């Protein structure tokens, strides 16, 4: 069996940044495996601009952003396989992949970086009554049709869900000559970025109906229309609020979920909130030497943070291998747990091993609702140590705080860190 130091599953922005970072940290035997015919992942279909403000201080389109990392991976002479699908990974890090040239192959990895990205929640999870006529797509699928294959799924469009992909597609379909009639959102707020609401909907006078959902799909073979209803505070449709919209296309933008089948099958513990792996400060899963980053770990809205997170995973994989070489085992040392409370949905990482930690660690998290004028507070056991004022936080925008090792060392008894939202 061929051996590699680092095998990276997925050649999107996460996989590319992880590979470059592992290489720069002194590792040579690296392999990226990508099932698509090109590197770059989902960014290839995100032709709009707005990527890379944090990393490159300019606004790039998705393909341009991806290309910067693809160029780097090529320059660093990192090997990659395209049109190759990973079908299984074992606990002992045997990776099985498949492609038309080699067939089914097993390789042995010393470390694995999971970077498979996410998939869209499907309509099955939605529970809309009515037939299942043609003309219903996830927003990402429609994006792929229009931007990669160059064909329009329809002319008269309704979009359910106001996540960023749905908003971006409302503009895209409008520019391509379709009539986008309405974007309906179940929640009383949009899950998308403000900028996208203004530039994708308001610019084209596309109405956004908050606290609304589709209660009926009309049409047998092809969708002919939908019924939209207002929902009450519990999210149940209210009688008498029904409105009919004719359409030949319904796009669903109802959320993303980490691509977790491979992880689950190999025995990785998944977080119930993120659906991605539980990881420690090194972004390592419960299986030693298996790391995760990007959308497979938790769904990101900004690719810049994906790249940042992935570099850290790459660096830590490199460090893991160097330790294997000198025969030092990764003994655990002291473990501090991170807990999310009161308006914070989850944190990544979930635990910190103090001995393994760099000088600082970034804790990323999402909030459960829109809160204005609040504080993000961090407690070391019972003591509040960080109290950061925020004018607004929203579920659509990932938040983060930075913890210092020096500060953690000041609390020798520390066993739990709690992050919560507090009112003014």
């Amino acid at each position, binding site marked *: 069996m061929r051996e590699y130091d680092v095998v990276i599953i997925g050649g999107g922005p996460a996989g590319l940044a992880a590979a470059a970072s592992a290489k720069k940290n002194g590792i040579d035997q690296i392999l990226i495996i990508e099932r698509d015919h090109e590197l770059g992942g989902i960014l290839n279909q995100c032709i709009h601009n707005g990527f890379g403000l944090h990393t490159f201080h300019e606004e790039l*389109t998705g*393909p341009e952003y991806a290309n910067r990392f693809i160029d780097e991976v090529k320059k660093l002479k990192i090997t990659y396989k395209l049109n190759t699908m990973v079908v299984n990974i074992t606990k002992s890090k045997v990776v099985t992949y498949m492609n038309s040239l080699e067939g089914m192959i097993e390789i042995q990895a010393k470390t694995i970086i999971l970077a498979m990205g996410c998939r869209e929640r499907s309509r099955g999870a939605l529970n809309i009554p009515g037939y299942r006529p043609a003309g219903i797509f996830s927003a990402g699928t429609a994006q792929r049709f229009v931007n990669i294959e160059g064909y329009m799924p329809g002319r008269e469009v309704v979009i359910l869900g106001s996540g960023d992909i749905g908003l971006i597609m409302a503009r895209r379909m409008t520019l391509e000559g379709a009539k986008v009639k309405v974007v309906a959102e179940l929640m009383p707020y949009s899950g998308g970025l403000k900028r996208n609401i203004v530039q994708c909907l308001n610019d084209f006078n596309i109405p956004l109906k908050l606290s609304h959902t589709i209660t009926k799909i009309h049409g047998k073979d092809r969708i002919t229309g939908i019924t939209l209803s207002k929902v009450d505070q519990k999210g149940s449709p209210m009688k008498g609020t029904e409105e009919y919209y004719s359409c030949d296309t319904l796009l669903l933008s109802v959320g993303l979920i980490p691509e977790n089948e491979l992880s689950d099958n190999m025995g990785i513990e998944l977080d119930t909130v993120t659906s991605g792996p539980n990881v420690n400060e090194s972004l390592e899963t419960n299986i030693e030497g298996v790391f995760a980053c990007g959308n497979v770990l938790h769904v990101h809205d900004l690719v810049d943070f994906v790249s940042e997170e992935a570099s850290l995973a790459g660096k830590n994989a490199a460090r893991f291998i160097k330790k294997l070489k000198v025969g030092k085992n990764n003994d655990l040392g002291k473990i501090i747990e991170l807990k999310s409370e009161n308006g914070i949905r989850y944190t990544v990482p979930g635990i910190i091993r103090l001995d393994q930690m760099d000088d600082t660690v970034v804790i990323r998290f999402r909030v459960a609702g829109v809160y204005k004028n609040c504080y993000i507070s961090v407690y070391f056991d019972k003591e509040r140590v960080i109290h950061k004022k925020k004018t607004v936080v929203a579920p659509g925008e990932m938040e983060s705080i930075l913890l210092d090792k020096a500060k953690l060392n000041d609390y020798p008894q520390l066993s739990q860190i709690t992050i919560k939202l507090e009112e003014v």
Partner: protein
Amino acid sequence: MEERKLTCIGCPLGCEIEVKLKEKQIISIIGNTCKRGELYVREEVTNPSRIVTSTVKVENGKIPMVSVKTQNTVPKGKIFECIKELKTISIKAPVKIGDIIIENSANTGISIIATKNVEVSE
């Protein structure tokens, strides 16, 4: 007097800002929390402009479409014209990021450039 309501995109707060105009001159701006909101509204009211992104057909390429963008922002009112022009053309592979696809798109003085590399199909 004209009144317009705009949502600032400067930060997640998304202030709803009301602008009053008289003969195209701004006479009052209310609702912004910080200075950035005022600057945003001034720009949006006097000269709203956007980067436009789209795709163009590729002949003989490994993929059928190449993504493109305007090199700089164009006036909002010109967006559809820029897009229309792109529909009428196709380009030959290979294409490199930054290649000019259309010069002076819709008479805006702004060029449209490729945002993706496309190799020739084998």
